[in-house]
């Protein structure tokens, strides 16, 4: 018998089976989570179906020590991310052809997307120069975020010296990694500013031009222009100091944006799985995938935008 067109293009019996499976999962998850146990009391569900109250821990647990350096579970996951990224790009670019096969096309589309982003925001020349670190930040953050979402990866538990701990935990939830990445981004922006503009880059922060020119005007006899120039010159110095402060605040805001999004997402997933295991996890899983991608995009794009501002200073006057 030919397949009848049901809903969504699959045949009718298949659609009915899918709906029944989803309903069954929904009922089981509502019963076995916290909703069920508060509404119906103890139903005597098997061990593997009941979810215990989650205890999220903020600091990453130490798994073992190499010499005197503690290796945390987030560091192990970061190593896995590095291996995955290196293997992904190495095996795709081994026998590169002019007309790419499927694997090479995936890599080309990823690289093309990031290069397009760089050149859209920073122009042709600087876009190509900034591409290396922007692409590194983007790929590393997104792979870290998505590896922590692999089903079952958080369930591998080892026994350490302090007790039980997960073996793998996404490295974006450890406050040290976003801080390190924010410092790298800060140094990158300052390096490109100094490389392009020379030592004059620091006149953005210590803007004494107007003050000195107006003092010269005073000595030449132009009293009114000189005095108003001194007034505006002092304001310019304060504006420069506030610019310096906001450069340093960028480190903190980068750190907490990435850390807060990832840790908040992890705790949200834990709570949703506790409430209704399979049903509520689905929309929040989708949200977590999207948030991982968006945070990677925001981190790398902000680095790009600040580097662009550093090399092409926005000339207010002139």
């Amino acid at each position, binding site marked *: 018998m030919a397949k009848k067109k049901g809903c969504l293009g699959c045949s009718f019996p298949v659609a009915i089976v899918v709906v029944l499976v989803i309903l069954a999962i929904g009922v089981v998850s509502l019963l076995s989570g916290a909703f069920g146990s508060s509404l119906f009391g103890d139903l005597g569900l098997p061990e593997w179906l009941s979810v215990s109250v989650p205890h*999220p*821990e*903020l600091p990453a647990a130490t798994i073992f020590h190499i010499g005197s350096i503690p290796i945390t579970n987030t560091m192990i996951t970061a190593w896995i991310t590095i291996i995955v990224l290196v293997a992904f790009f190495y095996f795709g670019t081994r026998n590169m052809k002019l007309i790419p096969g499927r694997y090479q096309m995936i890599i080309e589309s990823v690289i093309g997307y990031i290069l397009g982003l760089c050149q859209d925001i920073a122009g042709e020349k600087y876009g190509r120069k900034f591409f290396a670190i922007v692409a590194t930040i983007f790929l590393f953050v997104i792979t870290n975020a998505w590896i922590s979402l692999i089903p079952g990866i958080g369930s591998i538990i080892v026994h350490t010296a302090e007790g039980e701990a997960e073996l793998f935990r996404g490295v974006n939830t450890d406050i040290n990694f976003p801080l390190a990445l924010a410092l790298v981004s800060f140094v990158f922006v300052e390096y490109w500013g100094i490389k392009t503009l020379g030592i004059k880059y620091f006149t953005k922060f210590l803007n004494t031009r107007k003050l000195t020119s107006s003092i010269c005007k005073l000595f030449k006899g132009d009293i009114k222009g000189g005095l108003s120039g001194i007034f505006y010159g002092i304001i310019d110095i304060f504006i420069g100091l506030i610019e310096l402060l906001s450069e340093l605040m960028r480190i903190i*805001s980068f750190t*907490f*944006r990435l*850390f*807060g*999004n990832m*840790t*908040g997402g992890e*705790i949200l997933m834990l709570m949703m799985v506790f409430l209704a295991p399979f049903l509520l996890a689905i929309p929040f899983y989708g949200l977590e995938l999207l948030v991982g991608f*968006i*945070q990677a*995009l*925001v981190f790398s*794009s*902000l680095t790009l935008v600040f580097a662009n501002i550093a090399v092409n200073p926005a000339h207010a006057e002139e």
Partner: protein
Amino acid sequence: MDAEAMKMLAAGISMGFGAFGPGIGIGILGYGAVQAVARNPEARGQIFTNMIFAIALAEAVAIYALVVSIILLFVV
């Protein structure tokens, strides 16, 4: 009031008040983006990308409040 109760109250209030500003801000961003698309439907991709970018920046402020809440509950 003992310290435990104060901690929980502070965590709730911090996230509660911290979500006012970003909520309104993201709403205004969405309003601007939808109006821009209505004026110029061809630029939909560009406008959407910029809107997502600005929403992530506005959301960061709510995330700072969330971090304060999390620290109050789990660290202090």
